[in-house]
């Protein structure tokens, strides 16, 4: 740790005046007088000696044209004493360049003064604070050591201590984060849910281009949940190695369930298949008597952490508000009329409460403005809308699914009776005899706790197995012009295109294309690339 000592104002001002004048004669002498005067009591002989010496230095400065500071004198003759002083005060002399001083000579001059003082005090072996007291004793403001000789807290100007490498240390940053994690855990213990229940997350998925994208996002969200969690992944078309390896790497407790049917390409059919997959997962929960709160997390949805805190409060069945993000594919596709825009309600699906806080009805997504322009096939560039009430907005107590459970209310249908004949299970309300007993969560639905989103690539889009490019890509489109005419490049095709645009303007004649001049001038034109 280094200590920096700021020069005193009056000394600096006089020294600055000296530096500004070319020779620094008389002004320098003034500064020196103040220095000499402030240096503490000395024998008269030594003070005259210093005065004469300073006069000599001023004359030399006049001849040299710059300020010949006494620092040189000290450096020449007092190096040993200098070392002694620095080691005894256990700090190197690092000066902080203050914004008020502009010339380095100024600061060095004032350094000299402070060093002089420490030498004077070095006769009696100084301890750290006593050393500083001696230094501050020269302060022009006439500092008092808090008025009491025993106190070592000194009034007056102090240095601003800066360590040489002020950047944060990554080890300490990690420690700080662990401290905060532990503090938050303690807060949850005292003020949060008293007996946190396990969270059972049901996710239907299937192998397609964006599966890894969506599952990774969901995986990271679930890893941050502070409650014990089991992730029940139902995969259409059977389990795949890619999904299995991703689940294994996640560090979560998971159940990977294969579903025999393949996922259809039609959104309506996909919706129905997903519902059947969820029912299948519920049956597994029932068989294994898993205990906890069931949350339906679709792989492309976005969940907030408050959702998992909120669902701990559910008794039997709860409903939360879901924000519906019906994306429009391409900006020019959906043109809403002005009145449509004004009449469009909030894109939120969730419970609606009356004034006494009880469930009065449901908010659903208004799909009228989108009529006729929605996607029918997965991967189509058109808005994807939810149908009716989405499962994601409901949470269940898993005991509701068991054959026998204490306190299971009679308005819950037995799970076996549901979906047996292959009927459509649109939403979890069909699991109930009486849908009015659903508990509204999240401040009676006022807080949106998760967002529903369906984003898919084209059904025929290709992607590498496990998103690993093995073996590395070969050249598909050779470069027309490269700065290296003889070598074969190993760049993937996209980078080649970029290079092409850069080289378009260069005059490399190595591989001349047979394109007309006109097209080569255009930048980034996709038509000019394939040939």
């Amino acid at each position, binding site marked *: *740790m280094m200590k920096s000592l700021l020069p005193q104002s009056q000394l600096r001002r006089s020294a600055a005046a000296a530096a500004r004048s070319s020779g620094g004669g008389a002004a320098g002498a003034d500064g020196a007088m103040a220095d000499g005067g402030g240096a503490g009591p000395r024998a008269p002989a030594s003070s005259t000696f210093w005065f004469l010496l300073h006069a000599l230095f001023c004359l030399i400065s006049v001849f040299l044209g710059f300020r010949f500071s006494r620092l040189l004198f000290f450096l020449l003759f007092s190096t040993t004493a200098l070392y002694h002083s620095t080691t005894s005060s256990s700090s190197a002399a690092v000066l902080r360049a203050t914004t008020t001083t502009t010339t380095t000579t100024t600061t060095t001059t004032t350094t000299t003064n402070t060093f002089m003082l420490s030498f004077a005090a070095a006769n009696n072996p100084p301890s750290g604070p006593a050393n500083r007291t001696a230094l501050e004793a020269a302060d022009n403001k006439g*500092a008092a050591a808090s008025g009491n000789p025993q106190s070592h*807290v000194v009034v007056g100007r102090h240095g601003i*201590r800066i*360590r040489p490498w*002020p950047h*944060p240390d990554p080890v300490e940053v990690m420690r700080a984060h662990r401290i905060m994690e532990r*503090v938050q855990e303690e807060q949850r213990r005292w003020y949060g849910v008293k007996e946190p229940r396990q969270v059972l997350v049901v996710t239907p998925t299937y192998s397609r281009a964006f599966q890894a994208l969506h599952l990774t996002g969901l995986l990271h969200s679930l890893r941050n949940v502070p409650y014990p969690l089991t992730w029940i992944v139902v995969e259409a078309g059977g389990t795949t190695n890619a999904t299995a390896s991703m689940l294994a790497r996640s560090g979560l407790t998971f159940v990977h369930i294969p579903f025999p049917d393949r996922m259809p390409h039609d959104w309506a059919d996909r919706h129905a298949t997903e519902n059947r997959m969820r029912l299948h997962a519920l049956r597994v929960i029932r068989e294994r008597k898993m205990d906890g709160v069931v949350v339906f997390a679709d792989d492309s949805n976005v969940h907030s952490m408050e959702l998992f805190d909120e669902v701990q409060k559910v008794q039997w069945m709860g409903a939360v508000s879901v924000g519906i993000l019906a994306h429009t594919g391409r900006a020019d596709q959906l043109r809403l009329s002005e009145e449509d825009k004004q009449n469009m309600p909030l894109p939120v699906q969730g419970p609606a409460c009356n004034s006494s806080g009880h469930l009065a009805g449901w908010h659903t997504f208004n799909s009228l403005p989108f009529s006729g322009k929605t996607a029918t096939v997965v991967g189509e560039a058109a808005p994807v809308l939810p149908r009716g009430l989405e499962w994601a907005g409901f949470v269940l107590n898993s005991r509701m699914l068991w054959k026998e459970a204490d306190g299971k209310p009679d308005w819950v249908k037995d799970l076996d009776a549901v979906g047996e004949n292959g009927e459509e299970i649109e939403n979890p309300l069909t699991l109930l005899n009486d849908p009015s007993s659903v508990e509204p969560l999240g401040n009676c639905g006022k807080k949106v706790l998760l967002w529903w989103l369906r984003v898919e690539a084209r059904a025929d889009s290709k992607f590498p197995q496990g998103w690993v490019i093995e073996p590395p890509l070969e050249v598909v489109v050779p470069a027309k012009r490269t700065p290296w005419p003889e070598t074969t490049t190993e760049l993937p095709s996209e980078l080649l295109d970029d290079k092409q645009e850069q080289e378009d303007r260069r005059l490399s004649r190595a591989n001349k294309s047979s394109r007309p001049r006109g097209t080569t001038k255009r930048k980034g034109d996709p038509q000019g690339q394939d040939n």
Partner: protein
Amino acid sequence: MGTGAGSARAMAAALAVLLLACSGAVAVARAQDTERIEGSAGDVLEDDPVGRLKVYIYELPTKYNKKMVAKDSRCLSHMFAAEIFMHRFLLSSAIRTLNPEEADWFYTPVYTTCDLTPWGHPLPFKSPRIMRSAIQFISNRWPYWNRTEGADHFFVVPHDFGACFHYQEEKAIERGVLPLLRRATLVQTFGQKDHVCLKEGSVTIPPYAPPQKMKTHLVPPGTPRSIFVYFRGLFYDTANDPEGGYYARGARASVWENFKNNPLFDISTDHPPTYYEDMQRAVFCLCPLGWAPWSPRLVEAVVFGCIPVIIADDIVLPFADAIPWEEIGVFVAEDDVPKLDTILTSIPMEVILRKQRLLANPSMKQAMLFPQPAQPGDAFHQILNGLARKLPHGEGVFLKPGQKVLNWTEGPRGDLKPW
């Protein structure tokens, strides 16, 4: 040798008993989210002063108190308002007695910090004269001052450096405590060890922070604390100390220069409207010295459950005998400010959690506040408890008839002018 072994065995036995007791106490503490607070004077935060002391309030003309408040009502909300609220509390308290013969303590309601500049800062220039005039008044009207020369009187002097009556530390040290108050007990916010302006036997109190305003900004206690270190305030006082190094003895500037780029430190001069809410989302709150070592930040940190990091050498904190501040806050020497992040991240986890439990104790928060009307365990009661702990008065309090200790003409010439 034998005695050494014997005493060692006795010590081991004592240690074992202590460990058992501690484990018992710790087991109890784990079951709750707070912990009892015990200072050097014992478990005294919840003591009731009623019945332990009697206070007589002198009737001073309104020019010493009411008229000053009427002239400028900002006196009621700034950080020195404790003197006014203490008077109001005592007037209606059960420990007040109308019979001065049975009083243990005498209170003089003079508001020396109510002479404000147009910007709201108190001017201490007339305060010595106001105090002197008040003492002359009570010594002429009643015999109680003269019989003890003020040794059983107490005065509330909440200004920057207490009864030194100056805002600049050097001038305050030069002046020293007002000579007439040399024998009285001073109730003040300023506290620094071995400092001229902290008289032996003073009662240190927290500065006034508006309790209702703080209560309206409470957030649910389950809100996760996600800020590591929080501070809002000046680092450089460019108006009064343009070169730096004088204000806060360079400590605040050092905090800024070392940690302005550190993402763990949420420090700036900006004063956001969510200042109180942010403190409740922070683990550590810096309480560095300014022109004087104390600040209302300590009160705010305690009320909002943020561990105070006190950067002020030799500071004496409020009610230091009733509240074990070393166990509640983190003390960092001004020289160690560049290592602040190392210091804070290397505090063991159990220590941090224990500090948070102590801060969560409602009696701790109550002891820092001056609510209107007064509530049991608040700062008013702590002051009275502190005064009660000084009873019974010692030998030298009552002077023999005719004995005079104070010199009425001592002090700078300007102080002797009548007010």
